[in-house]
């Protein structure tokens, strides 16, 4: 037997469930999963890795769209999988497509911003796509497969 330096894969998964606290963490009112939301942003907006919290600035507006976006379906808990003694991946993907039904969004948008509405609207991730407009129609974002190789959110050691 031999020891191997590594970040423990179980820890990666536990980061996604707020099991560890190296600093000052919010006091949770419940042990259930938080509520995550998905907001759409105009192509002219500035949403990126430095975004820390949801803001209506640059968000789309139009018939059928409510500021703040829609709730993300989260029926599948994060998972983590070892790929070797030194590598592994924690991952999570919404368990259903994100859908904005019967909306009219006439100004081009190209970004969906995922944030935690339970924890003061703190930022999670930014995903971009080709610019779109919607006219009396439906905009659907289909999620990638919830696997170590393709999940929407992945924290990995290599």
């Amino acid at each position: 037997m031999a020891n191997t330096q590594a970040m423990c894969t179980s820890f990666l998964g536990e980061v996604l469930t707020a099991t560890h606290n190296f600093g000052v963490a919010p006091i949770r009112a419940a042990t259930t999963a938080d509520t995550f939301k998905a907001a759409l942003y105009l192509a002219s907006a500035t949403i990126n890795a430095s975004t820390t919290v949801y803001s209506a600035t640059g968000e789309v507006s139009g018939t059928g769209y409510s500021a703040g976006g829609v709730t993300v379906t989260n029926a599948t808990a994060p998972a983590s999988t070892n790929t070797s003694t030194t590598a592994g991946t924690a991952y999570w993907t919404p368990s259903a497509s994100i859908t904005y039904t019967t909306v009219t969004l006439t100004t081009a948008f190209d970004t969906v911003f995922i944030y935690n509405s339970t924890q003061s609207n703190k930022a999670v991730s930014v995903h971009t796509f080709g610019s779109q407009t919607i006219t009396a129609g439906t905009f659907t974002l289909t999620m990638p497969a919830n696997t170590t190789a393709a999940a929407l959110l992945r924290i990995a050691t290599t």
Partner: protein
Amino acid sequence: MIVTTTKGDMDESLLEKREGVVNNENEYTTWVEYWLEGELVHRSAHVALKKMPPIVAEAASLT
């Protein structure tokens, strides 16, 4: 088929239908438009997100 439009629900046969696909490393997108006498009255889009690069974590060496 009935289509929701800016003019209310209309039968598809009354409208001009246009469709398109975008497929690249980031997304697979399909869109459909319905036009009535030169006016866009319906547009829907369906974006399938492909994978993002993972966040990389590392344990520092003490040697």
